[in-house]
């Protein structure tokens, strides 16, 4: 017998947590019970460090059918239809085993979606690695993560339509893999995970249970170090074919109204899925481990209970329906076993056949789990942070060293700026035949068949900005996703987030976290975008060093008329190019180099202040863009983000395969600042020349600055006669640079 007094710390429990368990049980737990507490109280499952702050999010609104709390959030998009989505991290597993870690991350988030009764219609992913040129290992991680995401989603027949990838030193020891999935459901067929009805049964559907992923939830709640390597047995492997079958079976069961509740099995396996179901329904549950189909017969109860074997679902059923359910599962050749029964005693009881082997009050695992409000304090690195990242002589130095063409090419060839084509070409982004805007544009757009509607998605999160100013960085993350949506003609209606941070027990980290949360709250309030789901990933540190705080925001938008979908490519020669939202003659608008790509590329530093953002003003810009699209006055729209204005213009050229003649009137000689500052709230649009007057009128009314900066046409991108490059050369650099780096 294992001595629990000696074991609790190994399972990640603290001394006072162990004491708390004893007081709940009024006795010492046995090892099985201890294991159950340890996974349920892990940061990953209990959100013990973040719960107190997350509850301040705005979670309701016009479109919200379900906010945080279920497997995924739900938004009403009209016509009795709803979209269901959530984003989740799989950072630690991916750092250790990139292919399987990423694959099972996708698998997990997809299960969350169909657990709500929705058919998954697309996925997105947000990835962070160290710089590609520093080591083969970063390339290996990048390559395998992308392959893992692709192989899983492709096999499932769910298009991966968008996302983002950043490379920065800060992620060298701790890459980030955040995956999001979106489902479409009939509003009246949505289902929840609550267990109810004394005597109803829990049925385990899908893969058999093996020793994989034992203590995965605990693993995800710890820092990475040498020991992580040794804990490799936690690795789980994905079986996308099985998941595809499980998906079809579950949707069929729902369609035939054979199940009352559905819950996926993710971290902490049977334990967390069944405990959550019981807790939500405020009922008790009897689980029989002897009924669980095993891969290895020698597995012991605690292993069965916390195994994280993939591709399993738990359904709540009426006993009378079991035979029909079993038949459907047989038709698809998958397991289907009753493993639990709903009881009225509010106890979570584990049996092995007739033998009672564990008994825990349900609520002590969930509602009464520990909550921490950690100490927070402005981190030391911010105390001496210079206000200004660059001085006049720095710009002069760069200009002396490089021509403007060279500077431009360096910027657009940066893996953070250039096309992520190498990534998305490995993802099936067209299956289901709804992808109305292919990857590469500001947002990814999925049309809804048999309606005039489309939904759009964009995800973003700038770790450098959040490192410099967590609050502003978070405002910008939300603002940028909403701005991307506006550029596509979509009204933002809800968001999900994945908050990636270091160890929250360190006051500096918790301060970052707190500020980011406050930023998100503020932005959501101003933009009127509710948070409907999300995920927190702490302990993203390697060897004691935390990543930049990286909140990833993914926002959904609604497009009422597919005819109005807009993308970022220039369309026709002679179209007018207009810059909305920025006064090029305003000095402060032009000095936003802090945390910029320019600063990183030419000075190799992350310094200064992150760009200012006036969020009320930002909202006006976005509204203007949407209005101009709605009135069909503009043909393309593309916002300014990483890399600055020059990159935005170039991308519109690239996507339209058009040249452009840009002549922006500048007050003084500040070409670099004007074109590479990452000033917020700017959108570059193009229009028929005869529409300019109407646009100008609208913008004047709204007090939005606008400036005609050039015309579409030719085969050259010419910017103020300083940059002058053939569009073919630009496309070649932009499109192929990642592939080039990856094949060295």
């Amino acid at each position: 017998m294992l001595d629990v007094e000696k074991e609790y710390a190994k399972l990640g429990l603290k001394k006072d947590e162990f004491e708390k368990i004893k007081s709940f049980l009024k006795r010492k737990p046995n090892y099985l019970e201890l294991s159950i507490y340890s996974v349920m109280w892990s940061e990953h499952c209990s959100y013990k460090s973040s719960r107190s702050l997350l509850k301040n999010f705005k979670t309701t609104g016009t479109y919200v059918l379900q906010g945080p709390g279920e497997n995924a959030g739900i938004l009403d998009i009209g016509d009795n239809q709803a979209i269901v989505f959530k984003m989740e991290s799989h950072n630690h597993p991916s750092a250790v085993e990139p292919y399987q870690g990423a694959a099972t991350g996708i698998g997990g988030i997809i299960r969350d979606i169909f657990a709500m009764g929705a058919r998954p219609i697309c996925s997105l992913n947000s990835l962070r690695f160290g710089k590609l040129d520093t080591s083969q290992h970063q390339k290996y991680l990048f390559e395998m993560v992308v392959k893992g995401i692709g192989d899983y989603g492709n096999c499932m027949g769910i298009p991966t339509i968008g996302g983002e990838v950043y490379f920065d030193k800060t992620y060298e020891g701790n890459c980030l893999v955040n995956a999001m999935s979106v489902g479409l459901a009939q509003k009246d067929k949505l289902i929840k995970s609550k267990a109810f009805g004394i005597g109803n049964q829990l049925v385990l559907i899908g893969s058999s249970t093996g020793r994989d992923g034992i203590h995965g939830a605990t693993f995800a709640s710890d820092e990475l170090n040498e020991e992580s390597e040794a804990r490799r047995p936690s690795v789980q492997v994905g079986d996308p074919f099985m998941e595809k079958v499980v998906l079809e079976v579950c949707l069929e069961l729902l369609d035939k109204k054979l199940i009352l509740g559905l819950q996926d099995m993710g971290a902490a396996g049977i334990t967390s899925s069944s405990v959550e179901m019981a807790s939500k329904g405020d009922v008790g549950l009897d689980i029989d481990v002897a009924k669980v189909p095993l891969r290895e017969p020698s597995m012991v109860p605690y292993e069965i209970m916390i195994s994280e074997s993939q591709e399993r679902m738990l359904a709540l059923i009426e006993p009378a329906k079991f035979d029909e359910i079993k038949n459907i599962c047989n038709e698809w050749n998958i397991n289907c076993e009753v493993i639990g029964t709903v009881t009225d005693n509010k106890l979570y009881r584990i049996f092995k056949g007739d033998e009672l082997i564990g008994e825990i009050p349900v609520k002590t695992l969930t509602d009464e789990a520990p909550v921490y409000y950690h100490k927070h304090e402005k981190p030391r690195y911010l105390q001496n942070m210079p206000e200004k990242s660059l001085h006049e002589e720095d710009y002069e130095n760069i200009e002396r060293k490089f021509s403007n063409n060279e500077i431009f090419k360096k910027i657009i060839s940066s893996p953070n700026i250039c096309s992520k084509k190498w990534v998305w070409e490995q993802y099936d982004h067209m299956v289901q035949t709804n992808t109305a805007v292919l990857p590469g544009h500001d947002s990814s757009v999925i049309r809804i068949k048999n309606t005039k509607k489309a939904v759009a998605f964009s995800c973003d999160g700038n770790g450098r900005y959040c490192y410099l100013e967590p609050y502003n960085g978070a405002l910008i993350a939300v603002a940028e996703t909403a701005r991307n949506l506006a550029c596509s003609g979509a009204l933002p209606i809800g968001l999900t987030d994945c908050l990636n941070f270091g160890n929250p027990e360190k006051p500096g980290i918790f301060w970052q976290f707190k500020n980011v949360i406050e930023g998100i709250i503020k932005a959501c309030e101003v933009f009127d975008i509710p948070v409907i789901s999300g995920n927190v990933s702490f302990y993203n540190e390697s060897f004691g060093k935390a990543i930049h705080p990286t909140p990833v925001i993914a926002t959904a938008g609604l497009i009422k008329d597919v005819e109005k979908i807009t993308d970022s490519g220039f369309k026709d020669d002679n179209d007018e190019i207009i810059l909305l939202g920025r006064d090029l003659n305003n000095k402060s608008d032009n000095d936003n180099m802090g945390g910029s790509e320019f600063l990183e590329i030419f000075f190799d530093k992350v310094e200064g202040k992150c760009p200012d953002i006036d969020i009320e003003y930002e909202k006006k810009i976005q509204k203007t863009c949407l209005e101009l699209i709605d009135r069909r006055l503009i043909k393309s729209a593309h916002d300014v983000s990483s890399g600055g204005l020059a990159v935005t213009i170039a991308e519109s050229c690239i996507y339209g395969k058009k040249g452009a003649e840009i002549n922006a009137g500048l007050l003084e000689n500040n070409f670099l600042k004007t074109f590479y500052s990452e000033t917020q709230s700017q959108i570059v649009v193009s229009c028929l020349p005869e529409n300019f007057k109407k646009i100008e009128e609208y913008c004047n009314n709204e007090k939005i600055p606008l400036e005609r900066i050039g015309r579409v046409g030719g085969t050259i991108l010419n910017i103020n006669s300083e940059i002058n490059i053939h569009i073919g050369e630009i496309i070649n650099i932009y499109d192929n640079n990642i592939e080039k780096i990856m094949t060295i």
Partner: protein
Amino acid sequence: MPFDKKPYFGILVFPGTNCETDCFHVLNNILKVRCKYIWHKESHDDDINAIIIPGGFSYGDYLRSGAVARFSPIMSFVREFASKGGLVTGICNGFQILLEENLLPGAMLRNNTLKFICRYSYLKVIDAGNPFTSGYEKGKIISMPIRHNEGNYYIDEKGLIDLKENNQIILKYCNSDGITDASSNPNGSIENIAGICNKKRNVFGLMPHPEACCEKILGSDDGRAVFESMINNII
């Protein structure tokens, strides 16, 4: 009904198939013809008069793409249906299944890039004298999405000569100018082959996804003519 021949398509579904609804959508919603799904465990179907084997990952493509699906009961019906002259089109994984089943000659290898490829590719219509591409002009350059891991078509020398002599090569990968060379070959496929038919010209396999490009909103409707050709040629 725009067609007096009353076509009725059967769309096969194996575990892991994932383009069946895409095909259904095109046939039913866009081209307004009747169609239905046929589960792989069925042994036959007497209603239908054309068969589509859609794309996806039947059985996960875990051993070899298409290798396991061929043992499903429905496949003996497909063989019989084809032997009687019925029209059968296999798209992507469907093409791979037809190869494994030997209803079409040759085999599929991993893409020589060793990567899944998803993007639009130009295709040249090499032959229009068959029931599947009669709606295109011979030599026309069209654009369709390709989305596969294993589209590197292989056939031995003798088989290739046969294919050519019988005009069985129907589609080839090319560039926007119609050049079919190594640089316009996405996956290493022999002679840039993207689609072939059998000698009797009633079984067609192609790697590109015509069902994914039948509406302008998806970027192209170049794929429609494949289905329209079938509809017009159903006997």
